[in-house]
Every structure is written in structure tokens, then in C-alpha cells.
């Protein structure tokens, strides 16, 4: 390396990680110890490149000839400059610092982290699906349209609904779509409704979606059995209620046994029932939201239909509806014509688009592959094994953890570390971190909010009895050996317990902000980041 400082070297300055050197030299070997992995910027060497483009044989107009002078940036944006080899090595090393379903059990309650069959990955990578332009005319995309229509019909059958939109790209997007459908329907009836009822055990996306849908959230308390109290519900039901959002089984993993009565009561005041499909995995082929009386149902295909979660997405959140809401669905929507030819159609009173194109299509293709691979018979066996695994673990944890609602659960069970905290000073969070040391991902912690020190465990159907037993044994071992030292956990993972408070207090959202925050050998701030760095200083600690 020379001492000549280029823009790139400044922006990609090499302070920080142990052993990080420009040019791809990283001493961090993930299989050996705790070394940090430098950022891609620290591995950069000016002038190095991985890119390669097709020979175009076009006139070689320069940037100055192609762009009006007042529009042309004086210098290119500085990015990392690495070889393909360094690029691959860096992101492969990073992947070694990442837990995933393909490594082992991931009992993150409410997230349904089941195994994602590889055949579905293959479906999503077929050029005949992946390389199709979304604006291509329908006669060029008959296969896609057929797939989407068939998936929609299958999902309607599974949920007992009449019609569906596949556009919402995630569960929360589906919720908001459903609430806008609710709003459109009420308005068409000439009603001004203002409130949507949500149980206190609901996911946070529910109340957030309600607000964005222009409604006011009314929270209804759960009863001592962990379910919606019909009496409490009756108290808040009136002519201002647009509807209720329910997850069934609920976030405690319990089936709302009075669902038929709840549906009748809500319908009685002219309200609609919204089914949050987060927990649909529990009831596949066993019962259907449509049969329970729901009017609007969203599904999380990344949960129930095994679309891989991608580190946080992409997912897909189709919304299925009863006949009276079908005319309001987002469009354009894939349809099969009388002649067997597929096309796009706009529902008569559509609320409009909820996505820039047609939704997360490749995620939908994965879900379709999963649907036909399992079939009606396979879907039911999913629910059976998921529910059996959850109940088995509930039994296995008795005596080691508090079980606030110790009755037959569905696909997940919620236990509590309240007694552990009281007697041994070990919180749910410590249990979660200890479990990481045992080689498992942790359950969801501190949710649902109505359970203190909650640990929400969802083994899913794809974990074998042996794995479920090993998970339970680890949790029991943690409870048995609980001591204040558990606050030190985890000790054997890529990093020790992470200081979340510091991250929020001293915000470092980019590498450039770090360069500014830590004294750098270079006097000038990195290009492209001046503004941010100055503001960070001005704001100080946020």
C-alpha cells in the first residue's frame, strides 16, 4: 500500500476491526474464535473491481456527452472496491455468524420458522418465472397467471373464503389492506364507523395497522383463560365498531373456543371479523376461518406456506374475503376467463393497488410449490405435528417454568420465567441468551405482553421428536442451573451480549457515521457522508 490517500481510501478508511486490511485481508476466521469481521469498506482497495459487462459495440459516449453538465455528478459515489473473491469470502464469513433454520431449531414463537423445502427454492429460480417482466402482456404470461389463480383458489379453500388478493407483500401489508377493505365496505353501506377492536394479546402490527386504516383501536382484555372475554367484548360493541381483528389460535397458542359466539356478536352490530393469519399453521385442514365466521383473512405465506424468511423478508400476505367484500379487492387481479385464457381484471369497486406491481410473485410461486407438494392430506398433517410438538414441549417444561395457561395449546405454548426471576434472578432474556449457548435459536421473549417474563415457543412441525426433546432438555437444564451468572450469557457465540442501549444512545447507522464517531487518522471526512457526519455531531447523543 502507498501513502497516497484517495477519496476511496478515506471513505473506506481502514480503522476498526482487528486484523482488517484493505485489499481483502481479513484475519477473521469464523470457525476459530471471536474475531470481528471487517466491513466490506475496510476490505476495499482503490481500483480493484469485480464487475464485468457484456460487450455492447456501441459508440463510446462519455459521461459528459451523455448527461447535461448541470446534472452530472462531479465524481462517482464511492463504494467498496473489491475482487469477486474478496466479495464472496466476506459475505460467506458473515453467513457463518448467522443462525438459520437450515442449521437447526428456531422456535421463535409466532414466526413459524419451519423448514423451507428446497424444491420451492428451485421453483423460484426457474427462468420462466424469474425473468418475466411484470408489464408483459397477459398472453405472454399465461403460466404465471395460471399459477396465481391456482394459488388463490387453493388459499381460499384452505381458509374457507371466497376470493383473494395476492398483492400484499407481507402480513402487516395484508392487515392494512384488510382494514381498507373493511372501510370501503362500510362506506358503501353508508356507515361511518370509527373503531376496531383488538384483544390485548394481539401482535403490534394490528393496532399500528388500525391507526393507518384511519380507525381508533379499542383494546379488549383477555379473560383468565387467556381468551377474548365475550362479556368484555359485549361491553365495547356498538354501532361505531367497524370490526374486530383476531388471531385464532391467539398469541398464547390457545384456540378461541367461543369464536362462533364472538362472530355472531360482532356481526350483530354490523361489524366485520378480521382474521390475522399469523397462526394459521395450527389449523391447516382442521378448521377454517371462513367457517368460523370471518369476513377478511390474511395469510403469512412466509410462515404457514414455508416461504423462507430471508433474514426478515420478503414474505407475502395475501388477503382472502367473503363474497360481499370481493368487489372491493385490490386490482388488477389474475383471473381465468370463460375460454380458459388467463388475464388481469379490476374488481368492480376496487380499493386500488397496494403494491407497485403484483405482489411478491416469486414468494407466491414458492408457496404454490409448497401447496401442491403437500396437498390437502399433507396440510392437515402439518397442523397435527405442529400442535403435537407444542403440547409435548408444554408438558416437558412443567415444573421448570411457569405455565400461565396450562391447558391444551395449539401450535405454540407460552411459558414464563417469573418464578426463575424471583428465586434465582434469571429473566426470560437470560434464558433466551443461555439457549443460544446451547445451540438453539431462542423463543420469542416478552410477548405476548399480557404474560410476565414470557417465552413463546413454537417448535413447528418440521422438528423431529428428537430435536423437540433436545430443545426441551436444554430449557430444563437452563432452568435447573439458573444463576445470576446467566446475565453474562451468551459466552460462546459470535459476540457476547450486545449493548442495545448504546446503539440507540450513540447512533451509528452507517460505516461513515462510525468513521466520524471514532477518531480517524485521516483529517477530512469521507465523501458522500459529510452531511450525516456533521449532523450526528450536532445532535450528539440521540
Amino acid at each position, binding site marked *: 500500500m502507498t501513502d497516497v490517500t484517495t477519496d476511496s481510501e478515506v471513505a473506506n478508511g481502514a480503522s476498526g476491526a482487528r486484523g482488517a486490511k484493505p485489499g481483502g485481508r481479513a484475519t477473521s476466521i469464523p470457525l476459530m474464535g471471536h474475531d470481528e469481521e471487517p466491513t466490506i469498506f475496510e476490505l476495499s482497495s482503490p481500483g480493484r473491481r469485480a*464487475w464485468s459487462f457484456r460487450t455492447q459495440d456501441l459508440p*463510446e*459516449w462519455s*459521461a459528459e456527452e*451523455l448527461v447535461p453538465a448541470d446534472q452530472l455528478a462531479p465524481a462517482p*459515489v464511492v*463504494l*467498496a*472496491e*473489491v475482487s469477486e473473491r474478496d466479495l464472496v469470502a466476506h*459475505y460467506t464469513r458473515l453467513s457463518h455468524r*448467522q443462525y438459520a433454520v*437450515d442449521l437447526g431449531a428456531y422456535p421463535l414463537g409466532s414466526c413459524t420458522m*419451519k423448514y423451507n423445502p428446497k424444491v420451492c*427454492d428451485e421453483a423460484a429460480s*426457474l427462468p420462466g418465472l424469474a*425473468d*418475466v*417482466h*411484470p*408489464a408483459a*402482456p397477459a398472453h405472454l*404470461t399465461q403460466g404465471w397467471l395460471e399459477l396465481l389463480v391456482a394459488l388463490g383458489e387453493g388459499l381460499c379453500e384452505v381458509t374457507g373464503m371466497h376470493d383473494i388478493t395476492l398483492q400484499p*407483500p407481507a402480513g402487516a*401489508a395484508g392487515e392494512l389492506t384488510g382494514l381498507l377493505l373493511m*372501510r370501503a365496505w362500510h362506506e358503501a353501506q353508508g356507515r361511518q364507523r370509527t373503531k376496531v377492536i383488538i384483544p390485548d394479546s394481539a401482535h*403490534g402490527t394490528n*393496532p*399500528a395497522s388500525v*391507526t*393507518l386504516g384511519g380507525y381508533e383501536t379499542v383494546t379488549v382484555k383477555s379473560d383468565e383463560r387467556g381468551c377474548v372475554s365475550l362479556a368484555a367484548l359485549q361491553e365495547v360493541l356498538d354501532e361505531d365498531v367497524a370490526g374486530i381483528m383476531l388471531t385464532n389460535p391467539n398469541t398464547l397458542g390457545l384456540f378461541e373456543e367461543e369464536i362462533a359466539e364472538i362472530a355472531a356478536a360482532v356481526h350483530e352490530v354490523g361489524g366485520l371479523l378480521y382474521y390475522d393469519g399469523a397462526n394459521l399453521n395450527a*389449523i391447516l385442514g382442521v*378448521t377454517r376461518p371462513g367457517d368460523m365466521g370471518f369476513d377478511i383473512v390474511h395469510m403469512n405465506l412466509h410462515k404457514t406456506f414455508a416461504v423462507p424468511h430471508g*433474514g*426478515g423478508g*420478503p414474505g407475502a400476505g395475501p388477503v382472502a374475503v367473503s363474497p360481499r367484500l370481493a368487489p372491493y379487492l385490490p386490482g388488477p387481479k389474475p383471473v381465468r376467463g370463460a375460454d380458459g385464457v388467463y388475464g388481469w381484471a379490476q374488481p368492480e369497486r376496487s380499493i*386500488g393497488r397496494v403494491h*407497485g*406491481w403484483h405482489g411478491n410473485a*416469486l414468494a407466491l410461486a414458492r408457496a404454490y410449490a409448497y*401447496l*401442491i407438494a403437500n396437498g*390437502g392430506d*399433507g396440510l*392437515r*398433517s*402439518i397442523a397435527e405435528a405442529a400442535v403435537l410438538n407444542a403440547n409435548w414441549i408444554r408438558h416437558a417444561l412443567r415444573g421448570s417454568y411457569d405455565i400461565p395457561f396450562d391447558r391444551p395449546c395449539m401450535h405454540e405454548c407460552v411459558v414464563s420465567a417469573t418464578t426463575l426471576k424471583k428465586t434465582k434472578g434469571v429473566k426470560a432474556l437470560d434464558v433466551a*441468551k443461555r439457549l443460544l449457548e446451547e445451540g438453539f435459536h431462542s423463543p420469542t421473549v416478552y410477548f405476548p405482553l399480557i404474560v410476565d417474563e414470557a417465552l413463546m415457543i413454537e417448535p413447528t412441525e*418440521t422438528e423431529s421428536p428428537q430435536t423437540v426433546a433436545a430443545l426441551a432438555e436444554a430449557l430444563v437444564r437452563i432452568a435447573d442451573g439458573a444463576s445470576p451468572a446467566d446475565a453474562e450469557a451468551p459466552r460462546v457465540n459470535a*459476540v*457476547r451480549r450486545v*449493548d*442495545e442501549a*448504546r*446503539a440507540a444512545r450513540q*447512533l451509528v447507522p*452507517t460505516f461513515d457515521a462510525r468513521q466520524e464517531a471514532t477518531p480517524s487518522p485521516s483529517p477530512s471526512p469521507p465523501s*458522500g*457522508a459529510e452531511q450525516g457526519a456533521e449532523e450526528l455531531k450536532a*445532535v450528539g447523543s440521540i
Partner: protein
Amino acid sequence: MGHYVPHTEPELAEMLAFVGLSSLDELFDTIPEALRLAAGPRPRAGGAERHLDLADGLSEPDTRHELARLAGRNAACGPDLVCFAGGGAYDHEIPTAVTSVAFRSEYVTAYTPYQPEVAQGVLQALFEYQTMVSRITGLAVANASLYDGATACVEAANLVVAAKRRPTIWLSQGLNPRWRETMSTFAVGTGHELVTVDLVDGRTAWPDAAGSGEPAALFVAQPNYLGGLEDVAEARRVADAHGALLVVAFDPVAAGLLHTPGSLGADVVVGEGQPLGTPLSLGGPYLGLFATTLELVRRLPGRLVGETVDAEGTRAYVTTLRTREQDIRRERASSNVCTNQTLIAVVAALQMAWLGTTGLRELAVRCARATRHTRETILAIEGVEPLADVATLREFAVRLPVEPATVIDRMAEEGFLAGIALEEEYGERGLLVAATERRTRAEIDAYAAALEKVVR
């Protein structure tokens, strides 16, 4: 049991015994009988029991065969259908290394990094992604992704209305019409007033006043939907005159040549990240790019990764400013985003690392060259006229002498996806044409020759 359920019959029996049950059906005893479907195979006809009306599961080879059959009924972009369509979905090079590494199991089958100690891989990749997006937008903070360009606009609308406490937004007509439609859909819930500001000669003609009050923000696309280069600095001046924020919908490829929106005064930058390594995919999953100034960070929608240290002082990453988010703030949250597009963000990070400083500019230059050659060649065809007299970069609009839908159909027979038929609001018989770095002189000349034949 289904293909992916590992339990054997004896294991099921043993587990049932452990929980005190004798059959799988009893697991569902808490579900009222009237609501239950029957187990077992479907009856051949009209039994009293209700079953799912779905075919039985397929073997893996049969599943693969069925998907291949469906894929075979599509005309994919490639040598047999050379792509000149854009409109927010572009046919760019996707290097093998990017796909190969981004689709490692560890990235594909993890979830939101709720336990940072075992999620440093995804967290650091997102931190690097945020840094790259920050640099190409010229703003201090970028989030860890939203669903797509359209929904990024929706979130930007919610942000600016909350920040300025004004319900009105001015949208340039040059903003993708499908994105504007998506914003209208969600504005019904939030009560925002969206005012469309027309393009004149291919550029936004900002008015002195519009709508019922001062705007919270102006939204301008750079380049705009017709491919025209907007005067973002002028939009900033207009925004200032109204005390409004400026939101720029930018194209990450054009960022290889143009001033960053942040350097021209944008408060929020949104964009469609599909050009950064994601295939056309019938329109999804794509990637919503979203960046803001540091002043607005507390209103940032979605996840944000920050750097911190672990208990031993080792550098570590974690999702931060979590109190903005729906799972904590619930009905007071300004966004309901939970699952986002993390994997696509990781892909984009890899793609930007593959491009690097020189590659991003080279990509933009090559797209601009292909676009210019296409434009010059087809404008030489009699009856094909520019839709507006405006500088373009990677896409442009023309007026055809015949209906664009017909032209697109006939061009497909010639082996070309000719472009996108423009909405009527942009004038009659408009066609939007894009040529990326993948287009060669031979392809472009053949395209022009076919178009000349088709519009004759």
C-alpha cells in the same frame, strides 16, 4: 404425514401418550365440533364429513414438473424476448457471485435479527447495505428496506405528514403512476390529500398553490417516469418557498451519473432497488429503498441497524431505535412494517459491492449509451416522435403512429418486449422504452428494424 413432517407412526403414538392423548384428532378438542373438518382421505362423493377440497400432495419430481410446466407457459426475457421494457423493472446483469452468496441458507432461512448474538451476519450485511444506500442517496440514514418503490412512497407520505403536521402532499405526475395509485389507496386510511402536479414538456411544472393548504412535501422522481431528468434543485427551492420537505424518488442506476438527491437538498429519498441484483420476477419481491436526513431518523419506518459493542467491547450490530416500531409503539406507531425485504437488501449490498465505485458509474454510462442509441435509431422511424423534449438517461417515451398495445403484441412475435404502453394521462399512443447495459448494438438495431416494420 406430509413430505416435510419427520414424525414416524410410533413416534406420534409415543408423543401422544406423553401428553395424555390417544389420537391426533384429540389435539383439536378445543375447537368446537361444528367448525371442524374431517381427517383422513377425502370421500369420493358427497359424504357428510367436510374435507379440504384439494388434491393430495405431489412427489417432489411431480411438483418440479408442474412448476416447470407453468414456467414454460411464460415468455421470459432473454434471447427470445429481448427486453426494452422498464417502468420501474429493469433487465440488468445479475452476476453469479451475487446470487450464489446471497442465497446461502444462512441468509435465506433466518428471520428478523431479534437475537443479535446469533444474527451478526444479517445485521452486518444490512449495516453495509445501509451505508451503501446512504452514499448513493447522499443522506445520512437509510433503513434496512421496505417492500418496494411504491410502498416506500407510502411510508414517505406518512413520514412527511407527521413531521410537518400538514395533510397535503404534492406529487409530480412524473412519479410512477402505479406508485401514485398505491399512495392513493393508503391515503384513504390516513386522510392525506394527494395533489398531482402535471408534467409540462416532460418536467414537473410546480404551481404556486394547489390543494387545500400548504404541502407537507413535494415528491419528485429523478429521472421521472417518462425518463426525463428533473431539476431537483428547483424542486428544493419550491419546497422551501412553501416550508415543505422534499422527497425524491430516485433510480439507483442513474445514481451512477447524477448528483445524489441528498446533495441537492432532499429530506427523504425513496426508490426501487430491483435494478440492484434482483430479476424481473413479475414485479416482486423487489426492494424499497428509503433514506432520510438525521433530523428525521426518529420517524424512519421499518428496521434500522446500528453499530454498537458487546459486553467485551467487541464491535457488534443490532437493530436500533426500536421504540419507533409497531411491536413497541402499537397504535401510536407511524408505520406497521414488520417483515421487510431483508434478503433483497442483502442482494443489493452484494450487487453494489460487486459494482464498486467504478462499476456503478460504468453501469449507468452503459445504460445511457444503449438508451441514446435506441432513442436515436427509433426516432428516425417515420411517425415515431419524442413524447417530450427533455434530456433522458436510461429510459425515454415516444408517441407511436399506432396503438402501443398492438405494437407490443406484434413486437413480441418479432422477439422483443417493446416497452410499456403509457397511461392516457401522458398523452395518446405513448410507449415507454428502456435499454440497459445488457443491450447491444445488434439487438438495438434489430429492435428498430422490427419496430419500423410493425408501425408501418
